[in-house]
Each structure stands twice: as structure tokens, then as C-alpha cells.
């Protein structure tokens, strides 16, 4: 899988690259408008992360070029501007998604996976890890072939962790993703613990070979035992 990061801020670009390399993607980067145009016109990428404000031009122009070549559907716009106009224009030009900075790495991973999965077009829409199999179409889980009942929240949580295998999922990233917590009062995220506990109980009774690992009070990691 080849991913291109178009981002002028070097620090952010390198951090994102580091994270995506961990996911075993082949990562290329562009730091300005010119090199971005060069790269997208010559190579094909499975996913492109595109910043809108670039030195030398606008990311929307890059998107325009991609759209003309019918390749704009794998673009995720990453912008510091949470403006509705930009969002609408970006999506109009065929971008798949719009992520406002700052974002959690876990959220970016989830969005990239969503883009990549749509590209596979093999009809299969499942996530697997160890003996876990999560069917995203039917919204059900089976452990070692046996069905396990999940409520809506549990399904969303597990889905998020499976998009971030072996990666840190912070509690605030999870709260935002699952509980839509985009407001300011998340001063108590301890309730997430009880949700993880419930899932863990289900893993134990069905003898799953994956487990949640607490990460220094920030969040959890889903790992294979």
C-alpha cells in the first residue's frame, strides 16, 4: 500500500510518516505545492493525505488535478481550517474525507483504512485479528467461529481497535470516535474503563487470543496474546 503525505509542516509530516510506516505502508512525502503536483501527476497512490494550505499553491488545486484524472476518491484532506466552505469544496472535488488538525493518530489510521478498504472491492468487509472476526456489514463478531453478541457501543469500540491493531488508542480518541465527544467537558473519561472491562469479559469467556493492554492511563492497545 502506497501512501503520500502532502504537508508543509516538516515536523508533522515526519511524525505522520513514522506512524504510517509502522502500519507497513510505503510512505512518500511532499512539502510544497510543486513537489506535490509532480508526485501526483507521475505516480499512483492508494491514499493521499492532503493539506490545503501549501507554499506555492492550494491543496485544492492538487485535488482538482486528481479529480481530472479520476483519482481524487482516495484523498483525505488534513487541514487546520475547520471551515465548512473548504470542507464542501474538498468533498465536491471528490475527496473521501476531511480531517481537522489536530487529530489523533488512531483516528487517522481508521480513516486511511476506510479509504483502503473501499479500494479492495472484493466484497469482503471484515476485520480480523487472532481468532476474532468482525463483520462490518452485518455488524457482528465471532470468536473462533462462534458468534458473540455485542451492543452498538461495544461494536464501535472493537471496530476502532481493530483498525488500530497493536497501536495506542487513547481514551479521548475513543470518546470522540464512539461517543461523538467533540465538546469540551471530557474531564472524566473513566467510564471507558467499564466498557473495556465488558469486552474483556466476553473475550475471556470465548477464549479469544487477543486482549486489551492498558497504556499508562492514557488509553489501551489491542494485542495478540
Amino acid at each position, binding site marked *: 500500500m502506497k501512501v503520500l503525505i502532502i504537508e508543509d509542516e516538516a515536523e*508533522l509530516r515526519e511524525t505522520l510518516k513514522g506512524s504510517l510506516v509502522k502500519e507497513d505502508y510505503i510512505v512518500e512525502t511532499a512539502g510544497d505545492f510543486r513537489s506535490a503536483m509532480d508526485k501526483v501527476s507521475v505516480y499512483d497512490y492508494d491514499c493521499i493525505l492532503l493539506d490545503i494550505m501549501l507554499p506555492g499553491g492550494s491543496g485544492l488545486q492538487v485535488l482538482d488535478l486528481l479529480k481530472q484524472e479520476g483519482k481524487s476518491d482516495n484523498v483525505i484532506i488534513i487541514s487546520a481550517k*475547520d471551515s465548512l466552505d473548504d470542507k464542501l469544496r474538498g468533498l465536491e472535488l471528490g475527496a473521501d474525507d476531511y480531517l481537522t*488538525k*489536530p487529530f489523533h*493518530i488512531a483516528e487517522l489510521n481508521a480513516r486511511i483504512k476506510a479509504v483502503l478498504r473501499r479500494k479492495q472491492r472484493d466484497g469482503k468487509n471484515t476485520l480480523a485479528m487472532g481468532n476474532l472476526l468482525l463483520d462490518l456489514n452485518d455488524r457482528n463478531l465471532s470468536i473462533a467461529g462462534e458468534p458473540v453478541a455485542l451492543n452498538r457501543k461495544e461494536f464501535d469500540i472493537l471496530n476502532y481497535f481493530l483498525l488500530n491493531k497493536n497501536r495506542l488508542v*487513547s481514551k479521548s480518541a475513543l470518546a470522540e470516535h464512539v461517543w461523538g465527544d467533540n465538546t469540551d467537558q471530557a474531564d472524566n473519561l473513566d467510564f471507558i474503563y467499564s466498557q473495556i472491562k465488558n469486552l474483556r469479559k466476553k473475550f475471556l469467556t470465548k477464549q479469544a487470543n487477543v486482549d486489551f493492554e492498558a497504556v*499508562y492511563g492514557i488509553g489501551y492497545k489491542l494485542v495478540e496474546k
Partner: protein
Amino acid sequence: MKLANQTLKYLSVSVLVVIALWSTIFYLFMLEAIHDNIDEELENQKRLIIQELASEAIVSPDLEFGINNYKVREIPEQQAIKMQNVYKDTMLYKQDDDDPEPELEPVRMLTTAFEHKGHYYELSIINSMIEESDLIKNLFYSVLILFVLLVVSIVLINKVVIERLWSPLYYFLDQLTKFRLGKSDDKPSMDTNIVEFKDLQLAVTTLIRHNEEIYEQQKQFIGNASHELQTPLAIMINKLEMMVETEGLQSEQANAIAEVLNTAERLVRLNKSLLLLTKIENRQFLNNEDLSLNTLVTNIVEELEDMATFKNITIQVQQQLELNLSLDSSLANIMVSNLIRNALFHNIEGGEVDITITENALLVANTGVEGPLDAEQVFSRFYKSDASSKGTGLGLAIVQAICHLYGFEVSYHYDQSKHIFKLNFPSA
């Protein structure tokens, strides 16, 4: 004191002074004119009497003022030669119809001398005079009537003048009172030809425009600053997230990173809230759509159920009626969600949140700290009832900003040990 009353006060006092002065002068002139008139008459009488007496053979002394209003007595020559015409005011007993007995009345008396066939006589002629006290009394009453008439007409003229001339000013004042910087679209204005009012309007308009510019700059500054913070914050958060994933981290280091990460995330939330506030105030959300408040509340309560269960809080929703509103759906969500979250987070273990939807209001009541909060402050930015809270202190300020945008009313009160937040939808 109103301008009209103030004017009246000064005008009536000065009118009183002017009239008093005028009536004194008028009285003196009158008196003078009356004297002149009487003296001329006396002079005339004198000539007639002397002519009359000259035709007679001898002048018989007439020592009392009788029907003729004069008396004559003989005097020595030396005295007569020295004598000149003397006019004087004096008093005499007189009786008229309505007097039971003679009364002293003021008279004007001319004393003079004449010669008749070698004899010298003194002649005194009287003429009745106006009574000064009567004159003063009559003058006083007429002046009083004049004064009252003047004051009444001043009041009436004032009323008309104020209604006509000053009405643009009162209209302007009314608009100015209602004017809110950054919230009112129309600047106060008046339709007038009066130069002073035009100048006032110009001065006020300039002042408002200047203030609006500053207000706009400040708003833009907050917006720009928040935007500029987004990228550095993104670098910080993502680097820390990567760092905490590093293999072989010592738990002490990891905990330190975790703390920084948590703090950075607080910063992100704060920044996002500030951006949101700026956007609300810049009216960047106006994709109004009709939505059901009941459905909205039900969805949000469902979303927050896990948090409530964790804190052992019971959420009760009482829907008296179906309440539909027209507003931006994301703002509606933020508004209701912030209120309910607020009720959850500032609650006690095993507490309650009661949500009531009425015909035109949404009430969120929760148990929490004892005693009422400062109702004036509770919606202010960065107000925190509990200093240790990790919230941004902007949640309710955002609710208020959304309410202002749509003309809803939001209020807080404390009743029966519950903190009650009420959203009123006047147009619903």
C-alpha cells in the same frame, strides 16, 4: 429630572422674576400717569373757579369743602405773594353709598392763591384719587393670572415642542439603549433636520463604527490565533502519541509523557471551544433546518448513557409535548449536549438529571453541589464553580452564544436542591 421639567423649572422662575419687576415698574408708571391726569384736572378747575369768582362782586370765604370741592379763605398779601401752586396727597373723610359712616379717602389737593379787587385769598381744590391699595390688589391679581397663564402655556408649548422637535432624539435614545455591539445589525439612526441632532447621530455612528472595528479585530484575532495553534498542537499530540508507543519505555518516563499528552489534549479542547465560539459569533453556522428537540434529546441521552451509568446517575426525560425548532443541526446538537453533559459532570455519585420538554422550553435539572451558583457568572467564559475541574469553562458560554444567535433565552436558577438550566424558545 427630565429635560422638559428642567426647562419648565427655569422658565417659570425667570418668568416670575420678570413679571414681578415688570409689575412694579408698571405700577409706578400708572401712578405717575394718574397723578399727572388729576393735576391737570385740578389746574383746569383752578382756572374755572378763579374766572367764576372774578365775575362776582365780593368773594365770600368758603371754609369747608362742600359740593364745589374747594375752599377759599382770605390771607395777607405777603403770604399770597410767596405762595406757589402746591399739589399734595392727603386724606379726607368721605362717605359713599356702601359706607355706613364717612371714611378717610385719599385725595389730591391743589393749594394756590389769587387776588380779587385788592384782597388776597388762598384757594384749595380737591379731587378724589384712586386708592393705592385697591390698585395694588387689582394689579396683583391680574399679574397672578398672567403668570399662571404663562406657565400653563409654557407647559403646553413644551409638550408640543418635545413631542415634535425632540421626538427624533427620544427615538434615537431608544435605539441606542437596545443596541448591542456585534449583535445588532442596524445602527441607531433618526430622521431629522436639526443640526445638533445630526451632529449627535454622526458622532454616535462614528463611535459605533470605531468600536465595531475593534470588536471585529478582536474576534478575528481570537479566530486567527486559534487557527494558528492547530498545527503546532497537532505536531505535539501526534509526537507524544508516537512517543508513548516507543518500545522499552520506563514507566516513569511513560507516565510523564502521558501527563503531558493529557495536558496537550486539554489545550486542544480549549482551542476547539474557542474556535467554535468565534464561529458562532461570526455566524458561520446558519444551515437552519427543522428538527425535533425530542429526538435530539433522546439521541444525546442515549449517547451519554454510559457516562451516566458509570457515575450511577439516573437520567429522566419527561416529554410533555413535541417541540420543533429551526436551527443548524450541529449547533442544536452542541447546545443540548453541552447542557446535559454539564448536568452530568457537575453531578454527584448516585445523583439525578431531570430533563423536561415543554411547549416552548427545555429544562435540565441536576443534583450537585449544595447551594446556588452565581447566576450572573455561570454562563461567562472560563467560569468554573470548581477550580479543580478539567473542563474548559466554555461549555455553557457556548450554549449562551448559540442562544444569542437564535434569540433563545437561557437562564439558571436553583430550586429544591437542584441546579436548573432553562432554555426558552420564544418563537416555538
